[in-house]
């Protein structure tokens, strides 16, 4: 019944919201403009001695002006983003980046129309605040395996490809400018080369924005995206080189050699800085077990510091950020609690999403605002040359690279790589960074913006239908499979062994050596506690079980059975000969504790929710109590049944005795609720009422296989002993430091 109303509301929502936003923005800008002039007259009048009435309501916009405007911009950006996803037809055809640029253009137009000063995407804002979150997000979640396997290809494309692009575009433009006539003769070679550098680099933000939506296969994604990340070093070096020398006038051979040396310093230096901060971050996270709340901050701060430190020395900030994220990640994830891990993940995604949105909107606004000098020849030439050089570069390099690759790049792959070379905001910011005495600046900026628009809009919009037309392989969205993990590891060891038999020190051999070094030395230093010796297979398995437990918990609360395609359960695979039922295999005790704590904790919450009304109420209604008890037990039984079905962690252990009594109690008796989450307490159980009660059905969850009662008893006893020991080493994932749960935070 609520559905049609909601639909109607959402259909009217986005345009309305957009209109309201724009209106707000306009009002604010107008108000701020008028306030600027209105402020001054007030001061003189105050000193004339005339006593004003005490202002009950005053307006002081200036005080909050800056944060207010920033917040309003961000809000506008996010509301737009929201709007686009509610209208399904549009977002299927047009990629989000185009829509955002469109909005930016619109807003820029409005601001210009009311003759206000629009915020421009200036270099400082972009490079220091908007770019790092996106790069960090990309670097932290970079698929390492694919990246290292294709590292050679990626480097060749990033370095050689960008150099080729820069020189080709710069050279050709210079050549054409010379031919053209007096119009463009003022453009000298160095300026052209500088321009070529700026416009040649593939932009990670644009690539991410577009490729994210088309779900292309991992190889192509990592090739294009890796290239866009690693070409930063080349771009930085070339940019500074040409900028320096465009003032000096000429470039000698010595300078060229210095440039090459500079390239190595910039890239390797950046990586080193990043790696150092990454290791520092990992080391710090080893000790955060008592202050879980600030764990995510360490990740963000160390990464940001890595970026800024690299920028101080003109090293490649992007590479530093990537190196930091990649280095930090395995150790931090092993140390950090589950909730912190989720926090890190979501904050990173959130920040990068906001940044990306803002970048595109500002790009649109700056386009309207910026100084432009349109020159048909120059602009068209730039666009055409960008395309041509990219295609030639990709084809040429692939021909060479395929001689060395095992899995060769096909023509389809080459096409997508050439087509996916998008330019974006980095080019714009670098152009903005050009010093003003470069008289070609406005012309360059116009050309850069045109190229950006062309690649993002035209190529961005058409890449999806092209991908479908060419039937390019898409990403296979498979969830983690324990079998694939087992076989990945098995294959790694097998291939290493075969290489050893052949006597060939290849790829696998060195990877194996690195892994062993990592395990014996590095992990001991950087990972806290017993996790440092945990093999990868086991951590993978634990993660999976945890995920399934979480899924169970969530689905349990919705009171819907999880949609599983099969109903195969543990008993189908256990050989029938073991008549004793399952002997109790388990994952490590503390892990199992974690999982069962999660489930119990959830049930606890449910129970507390059910009971919270009656807890503070001295008048206990026994019937209501009874009903909720039954519901609780039913839920618990259901949960444990499902747990034993879908997890390999057996659930057939009883912590609470099966008997439970309900009775008609006198009204003044309060149910004291033993907070079972205390380290030394048993599982939560209410103190039973007086003995003259009607006993409820003693429900015991169905066990797997037949178990004798005495077995169950001894199991239970042994279980309880262990529980007491194990309660002391607490689960990481549940050390949730709320104000009342401080006792839980032990390690």
């Amino acid at each position, binding site marked *: 019944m609520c559905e049609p109303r909601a639909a109607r509301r959402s259909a009217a929502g986005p345009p309305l919201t957009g209109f309201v936003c724009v209106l707000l923005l306009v009002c604010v800008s107008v108000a701020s403009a008028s306030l600027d002039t209105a402020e001054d007259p007030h001061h003189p009048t105050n000193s004339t001695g005339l006593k004003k009435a005490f202002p009950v309501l005053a307006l002081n916009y200036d005080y909050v002006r800056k944060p207010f405007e920033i917040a309003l911009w961000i809000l506008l950006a996010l509301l737009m983003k929201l709007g686009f996803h509610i209208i399904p037809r549009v977002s299927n055809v047009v990629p989000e980046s185009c829509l955002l640029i469109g909005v930016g253009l619109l807003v820029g137009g409005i601001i210009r129309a009311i003759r206000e000063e629009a915020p421009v995407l200036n270099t400082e804002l972009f490079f220091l605040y908007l770019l790092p979150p996106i790069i960090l997000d990309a670097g932290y979640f970079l698929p390492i395996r694919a990246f290292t396997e294709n590292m050679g290809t990626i480097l060749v494309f990033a370095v050689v490809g960008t150099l080729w692009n820069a020189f080709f575009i710069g050279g050709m433009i210079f050549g054409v400018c010379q031919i053209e006539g007096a119009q463009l003769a003022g453009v000298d070679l160095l300026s052209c080369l500088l321009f070529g550098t700026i416009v040649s680099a593939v932009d990670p933000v644009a690539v991410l924005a577009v490729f994210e939506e088309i779900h292309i296969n991992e190889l192509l994604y990592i090739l294009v995206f890796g290239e866009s990340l690693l070409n930063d070093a080349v771009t930085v070096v070339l940019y500074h080189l040409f900028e320096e020398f465009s003032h000096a006038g000429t470039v000698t051979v010595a300078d060229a050699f210095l440039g090459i040396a500079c390239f190595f310093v910039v890239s390797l230096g950046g990586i080193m800085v990043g790696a150092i901060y990454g290791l520092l971050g990992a080391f710090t996270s080893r000790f955060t077990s008592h202050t879980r709340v600030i764990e995510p901050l360490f990740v963000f701060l160390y990464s940001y510091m890595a970026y800024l430190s690299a920028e101080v020395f003109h090293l490649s900030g992007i590479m530093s950020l990537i190196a930091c994220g990649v280095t930090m990640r395995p150790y931090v994830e092993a140390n950090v609690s589950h909730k912190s891990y989720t926090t890190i993940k979501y904050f990173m995604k959130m920040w990068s999403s906001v940044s990306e949105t803002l970048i595109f909107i500002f790009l649109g606004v700056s386009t309207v605002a910026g100084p432009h000098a349109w020159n048909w020849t120059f602009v068209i030439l730039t666009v055409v040359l960008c395309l041509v050089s990219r295609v030639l570069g990709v084809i040429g390099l692939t021909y060479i690279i395929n001689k060395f690759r095992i899995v060769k790049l096909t023509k389809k792959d080459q096409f997508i790589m050439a087509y996916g070379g998008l330019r974006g905001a980095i080019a714009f910011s670098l152009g903005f960074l050009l010093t003003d005495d470069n008289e070609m600046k406005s012309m360059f900026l116009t050309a850069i913006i045109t190229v950006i628009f062309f690649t993002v809009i035209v190529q961005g919009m058409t890449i999806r239908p092209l991908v479908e037309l060419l039937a390019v392989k898409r990403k296979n969205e498979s969830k983690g499979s324990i079998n694939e993990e087992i076989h990945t590891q098995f294959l790694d060891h097998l291939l290493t*062994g075969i290489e050893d038999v052949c006597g060939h020190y290849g790829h696998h051999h060195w990877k*194996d050596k690195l892994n062993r070094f990592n395990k014996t030395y590095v992990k001991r230093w950087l990972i806290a506690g017993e996790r440092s010796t945990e093999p990868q297979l*086991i951590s993978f398995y634990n993660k999976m079980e945890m995920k399934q437990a979480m899924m169970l918990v969530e689905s349990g609360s919705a009171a819907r059975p999880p949609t599983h395609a099969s109903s195969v359960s543990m008993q189908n695979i256990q050989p029938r000969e073991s008549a004793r039922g399952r002997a109790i295999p388990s994952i490590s005790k503390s892990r199992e504790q974690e999982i069962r704590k999660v489930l119990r904790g959830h049930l606890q919450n449910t129970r507390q929710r059910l009971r919270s009304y009656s807890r503070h109420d001295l008048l206990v209604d026994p019937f209501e109590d009874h009903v909720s008890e039954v519901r609780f037990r039913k839920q618990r039984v259901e949960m444990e049944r499902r747990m034993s079905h879908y997890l*390999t962690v057996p659930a057939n252990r009883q912590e609470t005795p099966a008997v439970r009594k309900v009775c008609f109690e006198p009204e003044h008796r309060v149910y004291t609720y033993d907070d079972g989450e205390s380290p030394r307490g048993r599982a939560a159980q209410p103190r039973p009422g007086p003995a003259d009660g009607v006993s409820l059905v003693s429900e015991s969850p169905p066990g797997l296989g037949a178990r004798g009662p005495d077995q169950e008893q001894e199991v239970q006893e042994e279980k309880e002993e262990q529980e007491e020991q194990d309660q002391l080493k607490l689960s990481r994932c549940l050390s949730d430091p709320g104000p009342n749960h401080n006792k839980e935070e032990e390690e």
Partner: protein
Amino acid sequence: MEALHYLCTHKIVTIDSSSLFSVSFEQIGILHNRFKQLSHNEETLLRENFSKIPDLECNPIRSQIIEAFFDRRNFRQNGEGTVEEIGFEEFLVTMSHFRPPTLNMSEHQREGVRRDKLRFLFNMHDTDNDGTITLEEYRHVVEELLSLSEAMEKDTAKSIADAAMLEVASISMGHMEPDEFYEGITFEHFLKLLNGFEIESRMYVRFLNMDTTTLCK
């Protein structure tokens, strides 16, 4: 070329150049040198020769790798059981399972390569050669994989193997009644399981640029 001479004298005609598993003559030569190095210039290789390779000691699944070389099912002659010693021909045939994929393969050929490589893996797991990988055998695989890490609890390996088996059963059988029993992973189920694994592009060793003067006693 000694390798060719060796082949001719021993009348090895199994290297069919049209087969996708063919190894070039250059690579045969390199492998032959390695064979002689391992066998100390004998005609055949024994298990001890493999055990002496120092790098192999750190490998958790070394015994299975060594066994794979002596397993007749890998000799492409539809044999069964194990042998005690192998000649160069068998060595070569086993190695040919790790040939890199060629560029232009039709779908059918690609499928053939996949089946071949997955068959090799399957044979490594199915030690008693009954055509299925039972729960016990799978447990053994997982235990071997984890055998080099210290402080491993035996039960962990069992649970992992159980979870894996559960997954296979779910993928292959879909729905099972509570009293049905899943016998083991057959080759077809194994194929289905590792469908997305792209084994044809992952299971290869580069034979080029081989330096045979490596550490080997």
